[in-house]
């Protein structure tokens, strides 16, 4: 145990937070929220393409964490665990109200404006960002969520599999197809 503490003090700290949460200590939830709320919000925006649902899903994910904390495995990262909950909520919202992604025209409105580049560079980069967003929007919900979790949020395959209740082989398959589609769409003309 001591050796483990030296190697992964933060993980132990997180495990302690989750243990306290299962015992009903909501101050632990506040600490976890402070650490990861912004990560979860950004994940939801990436996974849905919508900023307007980010706060709601983030809220729901952290409230659901109280109940889900009973299933938490102390060997794994809390960040991945919460993002997994948010991912399930995104899928559920998608199934329930068909709201997860409104493509193309809406996405264009959400382009991030950057002012620190020359117009030519800005145009090239914005086109690339636009292609990425469009390509991501065209993926199925399952593939989009998987590739966002893996490539943008840094979750491992086993973490994604646990979060989405999938065999890890399914995760690798989805990742393979999603990455190939993104590469063809975003960088296809350059390679």
């Amino acid at each position, binding site marked *: 145990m001591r050796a483990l503490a030296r190697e992964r003090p933060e993980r132990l700290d997180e495990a302690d937070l989750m243990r306290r949460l299962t015992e009903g200590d909501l101050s632990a939830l506040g600490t976890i929220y402070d650490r990861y709320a912004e990560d979860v919000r950004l994940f939801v925006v990436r996974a849905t393409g919508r900023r307007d649902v980010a706060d709601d899903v983030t809220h729901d994910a952290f*409230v659901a964490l109280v109940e889900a904390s009973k299933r938490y495995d102390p060997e794994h990262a809390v960040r991945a665990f919460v993002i997994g909950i948010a991912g399930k909520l995104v899928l559920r919202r998608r199934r329930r109200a068909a709201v997860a992604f409104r493509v193309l025209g809406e996405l264009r409105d959400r382009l991030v404006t950057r002012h620190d580049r020359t117009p030519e560079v800005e145009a090239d980069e914005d086109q690339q960002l636009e292609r990425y967003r469009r390509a991501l929007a065209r993926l199925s919900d399952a593939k989009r969520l998987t590739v966002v979790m893996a490539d943008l949020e840094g979750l491992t395959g086993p973490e994604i599999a646990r979060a989405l209740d999938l065999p890890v082989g399914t995760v690798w398959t989805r990742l393979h197809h999603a990455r190939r589609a993104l*590469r063809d769409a975003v960088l296809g003309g350059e390679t």
Partner: protein
Amino acid sequence: MSCRMEPLVAAHRDGRLAAGEAESLERHVRACRSCRDLRRDMGRLEQVGRRAFELPEPSRLDRRRGRLEVLRAAAAARPTATPRSARGVWLAAAAAAAMSVVLGVELATDRIASSPPPQRLDVGLAPSLPILEAVRVQVLPGERADYAREVAFDRGLRVERLRLWDGSVDVAVDALRADQRFIVVTTDAEVEVRGTRFSVRAEAGALHGVSVREGRVEVRRGDQHRRLSAGDAWQPRRETTTSEGTLPDRVPRDRMTRGSVPADEANVAVAPVGKVAPPTRPDPPPASAAFAAAMAELEAGNYGEAGDSLQRFVAGHADDPRAEDAAFLVIVAMLRAGRHAEAAVAARAYLGRFPHGARRAEASAIANRREKTAPRATE
């Protein structure tokens, strides 16, 4: 696919290759342009993807508001054992900051004969909107409750309904904004709250009494209206047992929110009385009463007494969900009473007890300010 090794490039990136396999792949990639391009493109795609969606940094206020909403919702959704055997249903409500007070109690047009099925709050999944931050719902230790909270937009208003089937909940409602409504719904009635401190009790799903501790309350039933002030109460009086039969047996559930019972169908009558003692559970839980008394002192401007009462509340109800609020309010009360040294002590006590508390920043500032100014005071 131009190279049969390309799947291994992704596998290597995902950490799926053993050390020996990785070294072998590295040697291959150095010699294979296709695999080199693939690896480069995967890196570029991740960079593009991370830039494709950006969020503005939320303000400190937004962050705190989000945090508080989560904590309140989580406190309201704490798991409880909820057998549906108890017949009595009562709701005790205590508000932290009572302002203008309007309570509308509208009994539904018809009684719903069939009770809804037992239902638990599906934390995090059912609500599509955040619950109202001005409303805090708690199941007190030793109590039980079978309820659900839901929020919806209705004609431009954000309406939260707490559907209570069985048990006891403690509700604190701060003053709601003009575009917010909070309604407690039982099988036969609904109680709309604007911000007050009051107790509502129900039995077997039926509204059974209202008593007001602060502000004013308006009870509406049919064409009867009665306003109750602090200290007043009313309770429905059962006129005859046979009159129970005058109410329809079954109505659609969505009619619960409309209209009121005509006087000639009513089986209850509004009767102003000085004190109402509901038959089985007349008083709120001791913790709620203690908290309410302390808040009353605070709102009355008796800051010294309020601080002392709140300190006793914290000491006596350490496990109560309001303990953190009370601990912080001790600081506020002491400051307002001009007892700055005691406020600093209370701030340090708050930080020691709730190191991750929602008000730790304010408490730290007060504690540190006093520490800095204390030496000057002694000079």
